[in-house]
């Protein structure tokens, strides 16, 4: 075949291949030949970030040369970038992150001009520092200049005048998706009826200074709303009755509901809300205490749910997790908390056979007892239990992502990925690409690693410690990478020693930290581990319900009720919520229910 007909010489094919390559490979491809340079360079420059650090930045002439190729731009500063900014005309995504870098009014004039010369913008995201907010002129320019605006995200912005807020709500009138997070409203919006017919997704995460009643007003202005992500501030009650009376009527298409209770909602509130909403397809409850009555409200949605995330709620008993898996036939994505392996063995087969993504803290209490007793207590039971759990997992042929540990604890005995325990039963999981064993105790051998590599051909990454002996883990890691191209990742070992996980220190908050789904949460200390272990042993002998499922002292305290006041006052709970104490800015016409 002559070279000139090779697809490797056809620009449109090279472009197609480029879409599947990571950045480093794109760099390599640009230096292969002149034709490849022409084909791959636009892909390489498609997504670009301007950092504060000028040393890491390409020179101005290089920036200007490639500006027209940039489609997705993150700006962390704006100084000395005029010629570059002027040549940006093809942006589809614009992300502006910083604080004081954008304090000067001139910066916003430049940013307004930037928006005006990029009519193809579909997605804008702002991340400030609560002391700065975009002026009204900038906010007005967005819907005026960008007819394709689809998504608007805003974090930690300050709104000080009514004109600004009106301009912000002008964006709500045009965008399909709006996410706001920890914004500060120094004044309340003018009392007026807006209409947001385009809004399909709305996230209101703790907007300070905006009363919850006003928030319900805004929600009710979205007749086509499908996804609502709502987080109320600490100690802020939600207007349950108003919500239940108005929202289902005003938003009949609401199918996806994510609630962040910040652990202070009365547990009945969320239950009433779930009772009022019909046939949810996706539900996420974060920081909510799921007792029996809230669980009952959840069961109303079991037949319609395709996605459920209760991983970061507490008091979720193992039996609840098992019931969810037994009774939700349409689930494709589920994140659960504790699930005891014995409950899987004793329970009914899971109806959730279409699962693609399963995250669950699978715990073997028998294994824990064995460890605590320092030897083999009733060791015959354990392999059988393991095999039965593997058997259940094998009935999920659509699985792409499986995580079986608790990401925030010290490793606990769980499902052991050993051939001799039934690992081979997972042969049916041909679509599995990602496996996380993080948080579990594993003792894998070469035979087990080989089995994974040879049989799960789409497996891309494995997370966790494959063996408690570091040397063995390292050897297995290298083998998986070399023979099977499976990457083994591990969280920083140091993270386990910390009592509070730290963000990446010394860097600006990244977009993930500003927009990431989960807030920072507590880590276990050695004392906690012993506490948990005792709980697990007690479970075996416990006859009363309610002992099971506590994942830390705080949850235990909430259950006990009267302890919770003490707990909060002791100041310990501050550790769980590392945001500074908010200044609640009251509405002048506060309508608290």
């Amino acid at each position, binding site marked *: *075949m002559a*070279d000139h*007909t*090779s*697809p*490797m010489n*056809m620009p*449109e*094919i090279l472009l*197609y*291949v480029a*879409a*599947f*390559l*990571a*950045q*480093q*490979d*794109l*760099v*390599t*491809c*640009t*230096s*292969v*030949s*002149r034709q*490849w*340079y022409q084909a791959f360079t636009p892909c*390489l420059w498609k*997504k670009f970030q301007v950092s504060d650090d000028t040393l*890491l*930045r*390409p020179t101005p002439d*290089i920036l200007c*040369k*490639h500006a027209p190729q940039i*489609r*997705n731009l993150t700006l962390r500063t704006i100084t000395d970038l005029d010629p570059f900014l002027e040549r940006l005309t093809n942006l*589809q995504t614009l992300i502006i992150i910083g604080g004081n870098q954008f304090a000067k009014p001139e910066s916003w004039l430049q940013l307004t001009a930037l928006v005006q010369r990029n009519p193809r913008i*579909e997605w804008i995201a702002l991340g400030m520092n609560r002391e700065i907010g975009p002026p009204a002129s900038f906010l007005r320019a967005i819907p005026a200049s960008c007819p394709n605006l689809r998504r608007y995200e805003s974090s930690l912005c300050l709104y000080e005048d009514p004109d600004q807020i009106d301009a912000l709500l002008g964006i709500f009138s045009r965008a399909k998706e709006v996410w706001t997070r920890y914004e500060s409203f120094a004044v309340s919006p003018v009392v007026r009826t807006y209409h947001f017919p385009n809004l399909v997704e709305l996230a209101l995460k703790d907007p300070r200074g905006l009363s919850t009643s006003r928030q319900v007003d805004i929600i009710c202005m979205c007749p086509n709303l499908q996804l609502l992500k709502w987080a109320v501030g600490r100690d802020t009650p939600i207007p349950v009755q108003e919500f239940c009376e108005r929202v289902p009527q005003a938003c009949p298409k609401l199918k996806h509901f994510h609630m962040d209770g910040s652990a202070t909602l009365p547990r009945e509130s969320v239950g009433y809300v779930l009772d009022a909403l019909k046939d949810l397809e996706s539900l996420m409850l974060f920081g909510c205490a799921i007792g029996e009555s809230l669980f009952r409200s959840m069961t109303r949605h079991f037949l319609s749910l395709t996605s459920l995330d209760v991983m970061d709620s507490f008091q979720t008993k193992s039996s609840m997790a098992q019931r969810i898996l037994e009774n939700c036939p349409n689930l494709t994505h589920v994140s659960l908390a504790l699930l005891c392996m014995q409950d899987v063995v004793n329970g009914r087969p899971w109806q959730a056979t279409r699962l693609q993504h399963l995250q669950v803290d699978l715990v073997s209490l028998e294994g824990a007892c064995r460890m605590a007793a320092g030897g083999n207590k009733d060791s015959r039971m354990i392999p059988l239990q393991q095999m039965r759990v593997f058997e259940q997992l094998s009935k999920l042929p659509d699985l*792409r992502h499986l995580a079986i540990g608790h990401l925030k604890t010290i490793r606990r005995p769980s499902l052991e990925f050993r051939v001799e325990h039934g690992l081979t039963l997972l042969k049916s999981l*041909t*679509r599995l*690409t990602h496996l996380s064993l993080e948080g579990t105790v594993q003792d894998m051998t070469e035979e087990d690693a080989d089995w994974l590599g040879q049989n799960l*051909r*789409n497996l*891309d990454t494995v997370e966790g410690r494959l063996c408690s002996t570091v040397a063995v883990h390292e050897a297995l890691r290298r083998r998986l990478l070399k023979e099977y191209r499976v990457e083994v990742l591990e969280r920083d070992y140091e993270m386990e020693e910390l009592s509070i996980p730290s963000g990446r220190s010394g860097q600006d908050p990244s977009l993930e930290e500003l927009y990431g789904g989960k807030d920072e949460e507590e880590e276990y200390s050695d004392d906690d581990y012993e506490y948990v272990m005792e709980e697990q042993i007690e479970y075996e002998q416990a006859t009363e319900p309610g002992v099971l499922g506590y994942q830390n002292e705080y949850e235990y305290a909430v259950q006990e009720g009267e302890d919770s006041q003490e707990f909060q006052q002791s100041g310990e709970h501050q550790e769980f919520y590392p945001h500074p104490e908010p200044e609640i800015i009251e509405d002048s016409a506060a309508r608290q229910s």
Partner: protein
Amino acid sequence: MPVTLTSLDDVKFTVDKEVAERSILIKNMIEDVGESDSPIPLPNVSSAVLKKVIEYCEHHRNDPVQVQDETDDPRKRSNDIEEWDMKFMTVDQEMLFEIILAANYLDIKPLLDVGCKTVANIIKGKTPEEIRKVFNIVNDFTPEEEAQIKKENEWAEDR
């Protein structure tokens, strides 16, 4: 309902209409011509390659037709190739390229996807020189150009 396809080297293949219409090109041809017994000529595709393409379309005949993605995916995965497709693509490089060309010409997007993902997997982790060797590409840069490009793309290099 059978349809006859004729390859570059005049070999005739009879397939079900449903299978043939995995190719948007063929689908459009059939719609334009209407119900007809006359075979559809494919002068750009040799019989060896057409045989492979038909094999793919037969296996995937019941797959849902992919909707065109309007939004640009930031980075598509190349490691989610089905087991059957992986075995199917275990061919020599010449055939791989022929399949890609055929999928492009016949407008069979899923097959083009799989082909290009396979090529992407070949490229991954290689140096420029290794890539040139595998695909038989000549390095037509001057040393100055090479240095210039390296400087230009420094920001994107993994540390």
